[in-house]
């Protein structure tokens, strides 16, 4: 009741001079409007920037097997074979910070179509989720499937560079190419991606189910990097009875008796060269790393204190750039917000001081008929707060409309930010109280006799 009356009295007092009230609140309107518009446009741009940088692979993590060591000689990352396709499945299943992942088996060998040949810089045996991890689109045709991976089907996707080198303008989809004498059918062509951050041509690539590459093409890991020279056509006789020349003859690796006796552990059927992991967002990369580390340590039966038999790499530089950009943007917006709101608040204080002087007689009268000093304080404070809140509301509309216009006319990405709106309301109320207090206090200290006599 009391609050309602006070607010109504304040509205009436403001309504007696609507033009001045409007001009007073203009500072807050513009301040809050600017904040909201900046927040929305900024959030949109920042989301777009993040998306772009993520597209460049900022939230991609690389899990590599650890080093093999022999008599103190370390062979470097990836030289031991500790990662399995099951690890890959477990990561996506059990780590909530991981969006998706894909195994990778690498090969480097010659690819032949008709009379042309080429050695792509990357031949990757992987799963269909590879494209999702790399944020890559199919330009033509379609992706291979999980079923292709299970069956080790001889299908592949080609990068743009490879298409240019092999096909010379022909449509590659549906054609058969040979990868180290194994025939693969081209099911799709990847969209152009260009060079990566260190200048490597990412389009010089061939993607195929990892089972096909592993069992039909390489039959080994990184140990032999360029199979086209070390084995295959040059060293052995190619007979038709050997269906997959250069390939591992069976799914089960051959073991000597001694090996079998030495190693009572179940045999690892397959190992992969690396796992590419995509985190839910760049911010969740540290979580993803922690989750994967504990998961892989558990899966690899590593005792506490034992070193990891794998290593996880991320694009630290990119992430730092990303987060510093975002922080910079947020802080910049915050500064602008603060300045404009303080300016608006000072405007309110000025006009309220003028208003107190102008209405001295009214204050005297109100005191004479029974207003206590706290009644006067409350009245003027409420007036200031009402001004600020009304200004804040108008500012939200203005800012929202402004960002809508920007989206409409400039096609900038814009994101509505409820947090910014809530903050604007809270801040404009606070500004009202802070800058309204001094004039209200001044009004409440007036002496009724002096005030009544004031001309």
């Amino acid at each position, binding site marked *: 009741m009391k609050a309602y009356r006070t607010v109504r*009295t304040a509205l009436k007092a403001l309504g007696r001079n609507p033009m001045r009230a409007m001009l007073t609140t203009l500072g807050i309107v513009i301040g809050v409007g600017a904040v909201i518009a900046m927040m929305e446009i900024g959030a949109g741009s920042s989301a777009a920037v993040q998306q772009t940088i993520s597209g460049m692979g900022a939230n991609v993590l690389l899990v590599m097997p650890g080093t093999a060591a022999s008599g103190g000689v370390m062979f470097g990352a990836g030289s031991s074979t500790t990662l399995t396709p099951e690890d890959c499945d477990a990561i996506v299943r059990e780590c909530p910070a991981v969006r998706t992942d894909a195994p990778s088996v690498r090969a480097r060998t010659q690819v032949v179509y008709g009379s042309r040949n080429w050695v792509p810089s990357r031949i990757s045996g992987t799963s269909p989720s590879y494209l999702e991890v790399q944020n890559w689109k199919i330009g033509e045709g379609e992706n291979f499937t999980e079923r292709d991976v299970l069956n080790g089907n001889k299908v592949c996707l080609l990068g743009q560079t490879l298409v240019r080198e092999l096909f010379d303008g022909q449509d590659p989809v549906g054609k058969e190419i040979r990868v180290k004498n194994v025939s693969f059918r081209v099911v799709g062509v990847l969209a152009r991606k260009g060079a990566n951050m260190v200048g490597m041509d990412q389009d010089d690539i061939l993607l195929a189910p990892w089972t096909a590459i592993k069992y039909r093409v390489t039959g080994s890991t990184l140990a032999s990097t360029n199979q086209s020279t070390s084995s295959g056509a040059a060293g052995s006789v190619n007979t038709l009875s050997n269906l997959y020349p250069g390939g591992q003859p069976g799914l089960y690796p051959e073991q000597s008796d001694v090996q079998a006796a030495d190693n009572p552990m179940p045999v690892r059927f397959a190992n992969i060269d690396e796992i590419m992991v995509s985190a839910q967002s760049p911010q969740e990369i540290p979580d993803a790393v922690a989750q994967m580390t504990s998961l892989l340590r558990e899966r690899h039966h590593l005792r506490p204190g034992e070193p990891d038999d794998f290593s996880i790499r991320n694009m630290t530089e990119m992430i730092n750039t990303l987060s510093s950009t975002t922080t910079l943007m947020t802080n910049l917006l915050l500064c602008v917000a603060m300045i404009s709101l303080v300016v608006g608040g000072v405007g309110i204080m000025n006009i309220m001081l003028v208003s107190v002087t102008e209405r001295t007689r009214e204050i005297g009268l109100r005191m*004479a008929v*029974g207003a206590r000093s706290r009644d006067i304080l409350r009245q003027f404070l409420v007036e200031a707060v009402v001004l600020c809140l009304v200004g804040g509301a108008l500012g939200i509309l203005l800012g929202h409309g402004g960002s809508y216009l920007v989206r409409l006319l400039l096609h900038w990405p814009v994101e509505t930010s409820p947090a910014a709106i809530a903050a604007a309301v809270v801040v404009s109320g606070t500004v009202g109280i802070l800058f309204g207090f001094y004039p209200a206090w001044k009004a409440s200290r007036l002496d009724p006799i002096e005030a009544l006599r004031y001309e």
Partner: protein
Amino acid sequence: MELIKLHNIYKTYHMGTIDVPVLKGVSMAVARGELVALMGASGSGKSTLMNLLGCLDRPTSGEYWLDGRNLSRLSADERAVLRNRHLGFVFQNFNLLPRTTALENVAMPLSYTADHLSERDARRRAEEMLRRVGLEDRMDHEPSQLSGGEQQRVAIARALINRPSVLLADEPTGNLDSHTSEDVLKMFVQLNEQDGITVILVTHDPNVAKHARRRIHIHDGLIVNGALAGAAGAGGAEAASGGPAALEGGAP
């Protein structure tokens, strides 16, 4: 029964290092239902006395009883509540809120202490007061649309809204022409006679003062005449507190 009783009131203003005594031991009494004129030349201290009577200010020393209650030591907030409940003010320059209807002007004092009143009750009470001063057809007019006499009648209605026991009018006709003045003064007389409201008219104009049944003259901070009810002449029983000046003044 004495509604207002002042005993040996002193009021001194401090202007820097100089003390300016304005009231120098004023004693007076007003009975319930009286219509009193408080007269004096400018600078005589009548405004100061009026402020003290209206609880707008505190005496430097002395005692002030209103309705048997000693008001000399009240805090500012307590005095504000007292003004709201027991005192009505009418000013020379009306002091109405601009761009606010007559009705809202009249209801304004209710917003400070009458929380128990509903919005509709407050409105009804304000309408009743305006009807009493003969402005039932002017309720929604703003001060700028009203004549001086009408504005003063709105101010009277506002003063009456909380049913005060005392109505203090400070030169209520100072800004009015003689014809309207007469109307307004008749209204005070009528309120006094019909409703039994105690009215104190502060004025320097003998034509205004003649409507009162008793005139209190103040000169140089001392009451020279009419300090007590029923004593048209000198101080009577309380001549000692009325001061020697009371004897010198004589009847007007």
